[in-house]
Structures are given as structure tokens and as C-alpha cells.
């Protein structure tokens, strides 16, 4: 039953889930889901460039995602448009440019579906090395900036007043996110990358008592989703990337069930003031 390609797919998926968990927590805490989506959509431009310039796919996707996040920072500084409008512009224009470029690549077979939904069953040994090597690198870097990143997420001004550098930490986090998206493209594809980041993390929130526990649990739940999704896709002959996301969704839905002594959803208390979402500037 367990063919070679299936073991490779499992290894790749588990590696991705391991690193996506903690990063996904920050995506949720910092309300960056749309930012993650934008980076993922820009990956199609990375794919087109990698085919055009004959560079490694992961490197090209990482490069484009990094450029997009730098472009966002520069546009935010101009302050003419809101962040979600800027993200919409960046997201869809990079996707469109990628598709237009791909149309010029008449000499290669460009299977759009492979990139949109991933092709985990086709991962090779190099891909597994990339996923695990890159993943461990990202996790080590994340551990190094953990405290400043948590502090900057809670309140950037507080972090800065007490001697931290929240802007630098944020930029560093964006680079780590770009790297994870680059290594995730092969596994779940452009359209489902954000799901791997946020669904396991959202499921973990219910059970976690601290940011650290939530990060570890998100990794664990993501790995369960990968295993469940892949076995399901083998059993029912369904596409593997979407099956993994469906498995993650099932875990999230289970986390909503009212078991245990706590209520399903805690009411936002006074610690969360209704008038400001985070660290309002006055």
C-alpha cells in the first residue's frame, strides 16, 4: 500500500505542517491572512519566472514573494491606500502577470492546475531536502526572534519603548513567511497555502493556554491533517492537496465542538477594547 511516492509525499507534507504551524499562529495573531494569500498568489509569477530564466522554482517563488512584501512596505509608507486595497492590487496583478508570462512560454508544458493545487505525489528527494532544510532553518530563526516578535505582535510601540526593534522583527518575519510559502507551493499549491497556515493554528487556539503551546499544537494538528488527508486521498482517490485542507478543516470543526468545561468561544473581555484593534495611535 505504501509506495515510495507516498512516503515521499508524507515526508514533504509533515515537514511543511511542522513549520507552517508556528508561522500560521503569527499570521492569525497579526491578522495577516490576506497578506499570506497575496504572497501565495505572487508565487505564480515566481513559477513563470523560474521557467523563463531556468532558475530553481523555490528560489524564484521566494524571490518574488520577498519583492512583493517589500513593495507592500514601501506602498504602506506612502499611506495613500489602505493595506487591504494595496494587498488586492499586489495579489491580483502578480497573479495576472504570471499568467500572461506563462502564455509566452510556448516551448514548455505549463500545467496550471499543478501550481494552483500542488502536486505532492510528484515530490522528489531534492524537494524533501528543500522542505526539511528550509523548514528547520525557518524554525531556528523563528525561535531566535520569538520574544521580540510576540512583543511586537501584542503592541509594537510597547516593544519599541522597551528597547526592541519591532519594524525589523516584522520585516524578518515577512521573509520567513515568504520562505515557507516558497517551500509549500509543491505540496498544497498556490490557492491552498494560506489554508495550511491558518486552519491548524485556528484549531489550536481553542486548546492552547499560551502562545508557545498554541504554536506547538498548530504544528501537531497540521501534521495530523497531512497524514489524514494523504491517506484519505489514497483511499478515495481524491486530489491530495485539497484532501489535506479538508482534513484540516475537519480538525478545526472538531475544535469548535462544545466539550470540556470551557465555553466554545470566550467573549472578548475588557483586555480587548472594542474601539481599537491593536495598539491604536493617538
Amino acid at each position, binding site marked *: 500500500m505504501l509506495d515510495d511516492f507516498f512516503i515521499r509525499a508524507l515526508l514533504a507534507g509533515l515537514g511543511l505542517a511542522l513549520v507552517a504551524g508556528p508561522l500560521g499562529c503569527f499570521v492569525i*495573531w497579526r491578522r495577516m491572512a490576506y497578506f499570506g494569500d497575496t504572497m501565495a498568489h505572487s508565487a505564480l509569477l515566481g513559477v513563470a519566472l523560474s521557467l523563463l530564466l531556468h532558475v530553481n522554482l523555490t528560489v524564484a517563488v521566494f524571490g518574488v514573494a520577498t519583492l512583493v512584501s517589500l513593495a507592500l512596505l514601501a506602498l504602506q509608507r506612502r499611506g495613500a491606500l489602505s493595506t487591504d486595497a494595496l494587498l488586492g492590487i499586489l495579489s491580483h496583478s502578480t497573479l495576472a502577470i504570471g499568467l500572461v508570462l506563462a502564455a509566452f512560454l510556448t516551448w514548455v508544458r505549463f500545467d496550471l492546475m499543478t501550481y494552483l493545487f500542488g502536486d505532492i505525489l510528484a515530490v522528489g528527494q531534492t524537494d524533501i531536502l528543500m522542505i526539511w532544510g528550509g523548514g528547520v532553518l525557518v524554525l531556528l530563526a523563528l525561535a531566535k526572534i520569538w520574544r521580540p516578535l510576540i512583543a511586537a505582535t501584542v*503592541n509594537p510601540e510597547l516593544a519599541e*519603548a522597551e528597547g526592541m526593534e519591532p519594524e525589523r522583527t516584522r520585516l524578518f518575519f515577512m521573509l520567513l513567511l515568504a520562505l515557507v510559502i516558497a517551500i509549500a507551493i509543491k505540496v498544497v499549491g498556490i490557492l491552498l497555502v494560506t489554508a495550511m497556515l491558518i486552519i491548524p493554528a485556528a484549531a489550536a487556539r481553542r486548546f492552547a493556554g499560551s502562545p508557545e503551546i*498554541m504554536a506547538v499544537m498548530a504544528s501537531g494538528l497540521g501534521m495530523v491533517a497531512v497524514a489524514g488527508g494523504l491517506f484519505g486521498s489514497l483511499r478515495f482517490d481524491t486530489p491530495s492537496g485539497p484532501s489535506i485542507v479538508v482534513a484540516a478543516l475537519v480538525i478545526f470543526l472538531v475544535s469548535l465542538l462544545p466539550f470540556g468545561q470551557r465555553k466554545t468561544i470566550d467573549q*472578548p473581555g475588557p483586555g480587548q477594547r472594542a474601539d481599537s*484593534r491593536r495598539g491604536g495611535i493617538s
Partner: protein
Amino acid sequence: MTELMLHKGNGAEPLVTLRGAGISRGGRWLVRGVDFSVLPGEIVTLIGPNGSGKSTTAKMATGVLKPSEGEVIRRGGLKVGYVPQKLAIDWTMPLTVERLMTLTGALPAQEIDAALAATGIAHMKKAEVHHLSGGEFQRALLARAIARKPDLLVLDEPVQGVDYAGEALLYELIGRIRRQIGCGILLISHDLHIVMAEADTVICLNGHVCCRGTPKAVSESNAYRNLFGARGSAAIAFYDHHHDHEHLPDGRVRHADGTVTDHCHPDDGHHHDHADHAHAGHDHAGHDHAHHDRDHAHHDQAPKGGHRHA
């Protein structure tokens, strides 16, 4: 008061000094010409109406905002404890009071316990911050800031959403913190007339320093003593001040002599018992410095480029 003087570092190097500091955004001055310093063991209170630049001034002092003009000098290696005016912790982040304490640096367990005990929320250690009441959350933020043993404590409206009895208790606590760890405190108050009795200096801001002085004990005012009771009167003080100019809704300024000008002079308006107007850092070359009978009308005609208040 003698007890307090023991804790004030007489002749010590100031923790932070602002000299003619101002912030402009989009061609508009949020606050300008701010001069003050905080010494070790000193409590400086900033008061002023909404939008008068109190938080902006505090952010200049902590280094979050860089002054557009003037200078801010912080003592080398200054350790700051900061309680921001607004802090909304996203519900998606699970955070206990205990974890909140080590947000910007690791701390020994007994110092966490000591800070929580000092602010009276030791029993809340394991509680999620989202489940705290407004007063409890404010105390948790204060505990977090003091557990760091800061040199300078910056408190941006620490008594917001707390009733007068709670306010008096918090002011007592802040006074105790100053005596225990000897830090300087920059305190922002939302109330124009009710301040912490222990404050050494009160600075009233409205886009500039309107006046500065010392609080007058509530016990001297019968009306306020009735309002707060004997307990409150020890910690809360009345700050009695009148300005010789009035800030009009359109941003212009009406002066005592009836003239209306576009801007306020940075050291206008002191009907106050404090006579020491420190002018250090100001550049008033060419200005007439007769204080209260100055003709402000010339501000309108002054050439923009060469004028401080353009």
C-alpha cells in the same frame, strides 16, 4: 514631603530630557516646544485635553517617535517600563497574566510574584488577560512594567476606566513604586484638574506647554474633599490653573488682551505660582518677550519661512 525628597536624586543626571521638542505630521504640529526632564525618583504629570499631544510627548520621551525639531536626550542604557494608552490583545492570542509579565524580557519567578502582589492581582496570575476587568487589566499592565525594575516608568493614562476610589488606590500604588524602586515616572492624566498628589511637577499641554506647576492638595479644597472622602484626598490632588489664552475650536488662539492669532506661543499663558519659565533650548531671537501684554497680531504677517510658528 521630606520623605519624597530623599528619593529624588538631587543633582542626579536626568533620565530623559526634552528640549524644544516637537512633532509635525503632514505640515501640522501635533505638539511643539516641549521642555522638561524627568529625574530619578521624580514624578512628572502631563495633563491636557484630547489631542493636546500628551501621548505624542510620551512617545518622544520613550523614543517611539523621533522629534521633528528640538532634541530628546535619554540617559545611556535607560531601562523603560511602558504602559500604553491603548492595548488591545487580539483574542486569538492565548495569553495569561503570567506570560504577559515576560513580554519584553525574561524575569525570575519571584519578581513576577512580587510585582503581581504589589499591584494586588497575585490571584490572577494564571488568568487569561481577555477575562480580566478593565481595572484588573490596567493593574496587570502596571505590574508588567514595574517587574522590569525600570529606570523610567511611562504611564499613559493608567487610571482610565477606573472610578475615583480606584484611582486614589492606583495613585497610592504608583507613589509606593517610586519609593520602592526609585524610578522616575512620567504620568499622563486624562483629567485636567485632578492629578496625583505626589506629582512633583504638573505640565499642562495643548499643542505646546501651556503652563507648569505643582499640585495643590485636595485637602485644601473642601468641595473636592467632600467628593473623594478622606481616603481619596491623600492621593488625589487638585491642579488649579488658568491660562491667559484660550484655544478656539478652529485652532486659533484668543489671548487675554482680546487679540486672536493663528498659533500659540510655546511659552504663553501662565497664571501660576511658578515663576521659573525655563527658556533653555528656545530660539526666540527677534521676539518681544514681555509676557502678557505682547501683541500677537504680528504672527499673521510674519513671513512663513523664517517664523517658528509657520
